[in-house]
């Protein structure tokens, strides 16, 4: 039995890798009539398939050692649903039929639900699962509306060909807004993000990696697909996406900065990255509307590159968090510390991914953001009223806050010394799980050093939208600096290497001593006096208190020797969920409690309901 499970995991991994090579080959349309169903691979789906196959393959390899079949009783279920989840996502990307799309979508959502409630007996996971289920089904409701509307326009459930749909202004607006609600909720766009932190935090780490790196992107895919259908888009839609994206980016990272739970932090930073992607899409659509080609190109390139990049580095981070979780036994960063000494490889990979997610050179995160900056700066010098130029300072602020968040995460987890005995006593080592992470991290570095590789891959997708070839070398007087970037990144790395070698040589000839960290003359330092992650980000969190708004419970101190029970507690609050939705739903629950009287278990009264309904319908029909 156990062997069977293990082999099925292996088979699944093979399947994913195999699928990866297949996805690379099919670049052309591949219509296959299947009843009314239509499957096709076009550049847009290929863009999403690439990280999908890469990441899910790595995740499968990782899960072999992370969730070993021999030790865990629930691994059969986990394996099954990971397979179903991946397959459903592939299906979502391939189908071109509304009904089938909804089926695949629902399959994906449900598989994610079962994955995230793998640890069934964990109450927190259950609660997160319920919130997720509610959120995803509200979104699906909007999608039902969307596809019915499309059916009304085209008369068939097949998705219309790109750039072919034109309809009345109102209907177009309704279709776009329903798509935004349905898909935006899945993508975690604010203010529909409330399910996301809980769901990502409570799933097994490799599942979180897939949810954050891949499933959120399905929402982005949905919006991009919908946008593609129309002949011309209303101007406000691009601005709406831009504003929502900016809002998500800023508030997402503000939320992330205040978190204590490592996986929640990563989840909130996913909101930020989705925000950045939507800034790019919004910029592109505004450019399309106003005829500013540079904005269009820069926006789409930025968004598409970031889609792939985020899939890569966020997966490394989540997989790394799994390793950390395994060895420290807690998700709370303030209880960890000093892990870099015991798992140097994980620490190094986590560092690479942290640098990438902050958008720092020479890694891949910088490339995507560079395109967005270029678009914003170009707007700053070229347009009469450069509102879009404000994207640049916004991104700078978001980048700065990302740096706070990830210096905090990396510093508290891996550096210093262990802050609690929990983190100290568990045996910890890198283990075989670092293999897949290494692969993904190398991809990050490769894209950062040679962005041209990925840009080449993304170019067909941009061409797919613009309908014309894109010449990046000359965009209305703007040159995209890909080659200089490569050169400078190499120069930077070379400088670092040269300096490191010189430093090493220099150190050899000099006396060297090891001692404890200087405690500013304090004689009895303990690990507990280290700065915690919470204190690290506190200043910033206070400045953005309107969104992060952590709850601080201060102890009441009485007398000279207060009782031991007086403790300070700090809990980050999710404003929308904890302050608005939960009270609202509990109020609704109360309000509808009288409805329960209708459910009393007496069969003949139920029959009466059926009869009454029938009667009412008959009267209504006439």
């Amino acid at each position, binding site marked *: 039995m156990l062997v069977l499970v293990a082999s099925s995991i292996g088979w699944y991994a093979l399947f994913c890798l195999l699928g990866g090579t297949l996805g690379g080959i099919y670049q052309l349309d591949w219509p296959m009539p299947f009843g009314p169903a239509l499957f096709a691979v076009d550049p847009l789906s290929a863009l999403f398939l690439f990280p999908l196959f890469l990441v899910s393959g790595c995740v499968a390899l990782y899960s072999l050692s992370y969730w070993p079949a021999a030790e865990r009783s629930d691994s059969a279920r986990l394996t099954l649903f990971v397979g179903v989840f991946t397959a459903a996502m592939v299906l979502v990307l391939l189908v071109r039929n509304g009904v089938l799309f909804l089926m695949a979508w629902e399959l994906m959502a449900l598989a994610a639900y079962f994955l995230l409630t793998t640890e069934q007996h964990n109450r927190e996971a259950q609660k997160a699962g319920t919130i997720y289920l509610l959120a995803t089904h509200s979104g699906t409701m909007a999608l039902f509306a969307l596809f019915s509307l499309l059916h009304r326009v085209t008369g068939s459930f097949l998705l219309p060909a790109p750039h072919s749909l034109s309809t009345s202004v109102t209907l177009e607006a309704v279709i776009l807004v329903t798509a935004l609600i349905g898909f935006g909720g899945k993508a975690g766009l604010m203010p529909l993000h409330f399910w996301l932190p809980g769901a990502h935090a409570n799933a097994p780490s490799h599942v979180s990696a897939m949810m954050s790196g891949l499933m959120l992107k399905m929402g982005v895919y949905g919006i991009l697909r919908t946008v593609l259908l129309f002949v011309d888009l209303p101007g406000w839609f691009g601005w709406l996406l831009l504003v929502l994206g900016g809002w998500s980016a800023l508030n997402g990272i503000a939320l992330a900065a205040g978190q204590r739970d490592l996986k929640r932090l990563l989840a909130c930073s996913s909101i930020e990255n989705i925000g950045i992607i939507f800034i790019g899409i919004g910029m592109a659509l505004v450019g399309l509307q106003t005829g500013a080609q540079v904005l269009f190109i820069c926006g789409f390139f930025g968004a598409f590159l970031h889609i792939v990049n985020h899939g890569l580095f966020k997966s490394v981070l989540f997989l790394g968090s799994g390793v950390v979780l395994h060895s420290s036994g807690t998700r709370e960063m303030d209880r960890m510390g000093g892990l870099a000494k015991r798992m140097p490889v994980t620490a190094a990979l986590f560092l690479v991914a942290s640098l990438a997610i902050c958008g720092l050179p020479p890694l891949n995160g910088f490339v995507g953001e560079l395109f967005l900056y270029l678009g914003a700066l170009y707007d700053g010098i070229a347009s009469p009223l450069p509102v879009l130029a404000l994207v640049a*300072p916004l991104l700078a602020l978001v980048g700065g806050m990302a740096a*706070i968040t990830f210096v905090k995460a990396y*510093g508290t987890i891996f550096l210093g010394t262990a802050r609690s005995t929990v983190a100290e006593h568990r045996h910890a080592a890198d283990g075989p799980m670092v293999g897949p992470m290494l692969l993904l991290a190398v991809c990050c570095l490769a894209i950062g050093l040679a962005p041209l590789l990925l840009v080449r891959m993304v170019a067909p997708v941009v061409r797919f939208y613009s309908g014309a070839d894109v010449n990046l070398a000359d965009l209305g007087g703007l040159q995209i600096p890909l080659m200089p970037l490569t050169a400078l990144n190499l120069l930077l790395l070379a*400088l670092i290497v040269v300096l490191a070698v010189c430093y090493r040589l220099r150190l050899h000839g000099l006396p060297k001593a090891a001692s404890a*960290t*200087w405690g500013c003359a304090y004689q009895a330092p303990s*690990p507990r006096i280290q*700065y915690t992650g919470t*204190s690290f980000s506190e200043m910033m969190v206070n400045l953005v208190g309107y969104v992060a708004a952590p709850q601080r419970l201060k102890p009441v101190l009485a007398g000279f020797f207060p009782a031991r029970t007086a403790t300070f507690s700090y809990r980050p609050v999710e404003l929308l969920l904890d302050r608005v939705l939960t009270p609202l739903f509990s109020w609704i629950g109360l309000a509808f409690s009288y409805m329960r009287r209708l459910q009393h278990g007496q069969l003949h009264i139920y029959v009466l309901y059926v009869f009454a309904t029938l009667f009412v319908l008959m009267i209504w029909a006439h």
Partner: protein
Amino acid sequence: MIDIIIHCTVALLLPPLLLGVITKTKAAFAGRIGAPLLQSYYDIFKLFRKGSVFSTTTTWVFRAGPLVTLAATVTAALLVPLGRHNAPLSFDGDMVLFAYLFGLGRFFTTAAALDTGSSFEGMGAAREVTFSCLAEPTLFIALITLARMSGSLRLSTILTYPSPGLWLATGASMLLLVAALFIILLAENCRIPFDDPTTHLELTMIHEVMVLDHSGPAFGVILYSAALKLLVLGAVFVNVALPVSTGDSLEDWGLFVVAMLALAVGIGVVESVMARLRLLRIPQLLVGATILSAFGMLLVLR
């Protein structure tokens, strides 16, 4: 070619002198003779010959911190034009890379500070990332405004564009930008009123407290990169604030060096007459700088 060689020479050799001039100015204000102008060079050389003490808590991140910071700062120094001369490397959007290179350096400096496990260094690191996060938008708004005036996206063009004529035409907004840039210069280089680089009260410092545990050559590298950063950001400021050109390349270099020394004197004066701000007022001042630069942008747009 000659310009590139002079650029590298000036960028590599001038920085410690700026620190010396600042100290000398402060000494003059305090009525002392003060350390010799070349003291920073002596310090750095001495540190390179000293042994190191490494805390047992630290990992390779601690050792990498100063080196990565120096590498990033040197790369950034290649992107910024000094005086009226184009930078050795320039391309569209190089200002983004310029800003992000400092970000890279900051990431490693703060990570190295956290690596020691000292609460003081963690405190300094937290302040450093928070304040620079608030300073960054100002830099971008100021650069966008200048880019709009010059119609280019290259730092070399943007920063050599300001001229006395431009000052006369758009004096108000240039003044606002210069004020904002000066605030950023002081904040990013951890000078008074944001940070006191000479204090020995660990609780009040930002930059100095982060590097408490570094010693020997690594500390020399840190001192040098701090000075280099002052030069690079100072060059941005000087290019906007003193846009004069003699027409002769060599004379311009001389002018630039004099301007940088004057800036160092200016910083010394500010440090002598001002007290360090309360920590809670610093974000206010930085947001104020952002608003100044945004206001300058608004005036240019009109």
